[in-house]
């Protein structure tokens, strides 16, 4: 990935808080439905899976279909009870994986 994924989540929270997390990844999400100017189908190439883990435990994940818009945006929530690290993973059709991490301090 040329561009780093972008993340929006609080750096600090109180124990038991449900926090909002937003992520954005630059990606064309080529649907496999389009044809080029010679009439040939442009092969599908999308992010087909996104996961969010906290300290190694699954928080939220999603499978994505070609109906997800380019530059996939995800907004979801997490209940935090301890300090730790969120890990985000995007999996491409070509098998490549993009990851990002963010720490949060829970008081």
């Amino acid at each position, binding site marked *: 990935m040329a561009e780093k994924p972008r993340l*929006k989540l609080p750096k600090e929270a109180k124990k038991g808080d449900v926090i909002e997390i*937003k992520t*954005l990844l630059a990606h064309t999400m080529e649907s496999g439905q389009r044809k080029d100017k010679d009439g040939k189908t442009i092969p599908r190439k999308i992010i087909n899976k996104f996961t969010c883990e906290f300290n190694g435990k699954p928080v939220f994940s999603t499978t994505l279909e070609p109906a997800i818009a380019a530059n996939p*945006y995800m*907004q979801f929530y997490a209940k935090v009870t301890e300090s730790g690290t969120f890990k985000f993973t995007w999996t491409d059709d070509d098998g490549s994986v993009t990851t990002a991490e963010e720490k949060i301090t829970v008081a």
Partner: protein
Amino acid sequence: MITRREVLQVGAATAALTAGGAFTRAFAQQRLTEAELLRFDPLGTVTLLHVTDMHGQLMPVYFREPTVNLGVGEAKGQPPHVTGKDFLKRFGIPEKSAAAYALTDQDFEALAKSYGRIGGIDRLASVVKRVRAERGADKVLLLDGGDTWQGSLGSNRSKGQDMVDCMALLKPDAMTGHWEFTYGEARVKALIDGLGFPFLALNIRDTEWNEPAFEPMKMFEKGGVKIAVLGQAFPYTPVANPRWMMPKWSFGIREEDVRANVEKARKAGAQLVVLLSHNGFDVDRKLAARVAGIDVILTGHTHDALPEAIAVGKTLLIASGSHGKFVSRLDLDVAGGAVKGYRYKLIPLFSDVIAPDAEMAAMVAKVRAPFAADLKREVGRADSLLYRRGNFNGTFDDLICAALLKERDAEIALSPGFRWGTSVLPGQPITVEDIHNATAITYPQVYRTAMTGERLKEVLEDVADNLFNPDPYYQQGGDMVRCGGLGYSIDISKPIGSRISGMTHLKSGKPIDAKKEYTVAGWASVNEGTEGPPVWNLVERYIAAEKTVRVTPNTSVKISGV
């Protein structure tokens, strides 16, 4: 709830006296006085003043209200979908009265000659000052519902600055918007920064992080009452107008956001919640029934002028007209966080009756000065009434379509169903100002292209659904696209895809062939990169060549399912 309607009695006596036919201008005028127009028995401790949809009009105007304004679904036959004689009957207004002239299409040409132009921001300023002085400025909120900065030559050339400068003297407490956004993001932001009052829009989010892009609400304290004013911009601005002009903003009705903001306002101690809305009347009527806790919706966008407040459950809906013709005064008695009573009056600003405010008149002269020569330049003469409002036709649009057909050598012309645009009386000169009052937009290019009959039908069906979808949340609030060289039948009770039939190529009298291509000219395409001359140039050239314009009644649209 105490309700007392301030009947628009002005001119009622006059009407009774006109049976003999001696209905002269002087005679009409002497029955109207400023004191009578503004007479109001105050109630409670809060006064809301509302203006909306001024569309760049600083001067008094002629504006003919619609003959046809059909409602569908639950809105069928309900105000504002009542016109003409039915309107007069519904609201107890005498024929030929000043109120009949201001509020309906009835006897328009004759009454226009008697009662003169209505509006003018200097007259509005007089009224606002007087209400603030008499009531106490600490009890009055002045709210502007938007579509203020667009719709005239001056506002288009100054990119809204003329309206902003004049409104600054009027000192509204808040505004929202729609056409404002067609000046583009940078310009809108720059103008808002200099307003000195908030531009409220709870229903706009940024397209990147989906976060609120504008101030959603503002708390005021007036007459000892904590008032929350929530702003709702036109939800379909990027659909009805070019999205490429505002790519970073996403709109929508966002009922959930309205509800959340109402709850937030109540939690913050609001005793009165006011939605300053540009949704359009039918959308607001549905919203009022679904979102609890809104005391007043100041409606806009659909240009309806109603002499009574319409109650939906505990919510009052106010419709203050357009083009600066009216200002609404709503007095509210609020106690214990609830509205105990109200008194309402829709005040028509008869320009010959209300004395202009000198300070505002000077500002109007100043902002118009750079364009003065253009504004007054006479292009031709009207031999019949030119007007726009109506669901299907307007004579000004017929004129525009005729100009498009001739000047772009097309078989069919399409002109957008905008609801703004002033009227020109028969016998009057048509000035450059008049032409711009019907055409002044920031994407005025006239395209010329080929379209199949099938595609033409799709366009008509699509626009018809924006107007006649029985669910108001799926309506956009404009009128039907105006057609030149093309006739059709419409059954407004049918679903999308089945409303339009009998499409006819008027020149040949033959049915439109779905597969055949027709040459089409039109303007106001929402697509980036549309090429062609500005529409006002074509219309000006056409009128100049015609010299005198006479538009015959348009009978090419057959309506059913009403």
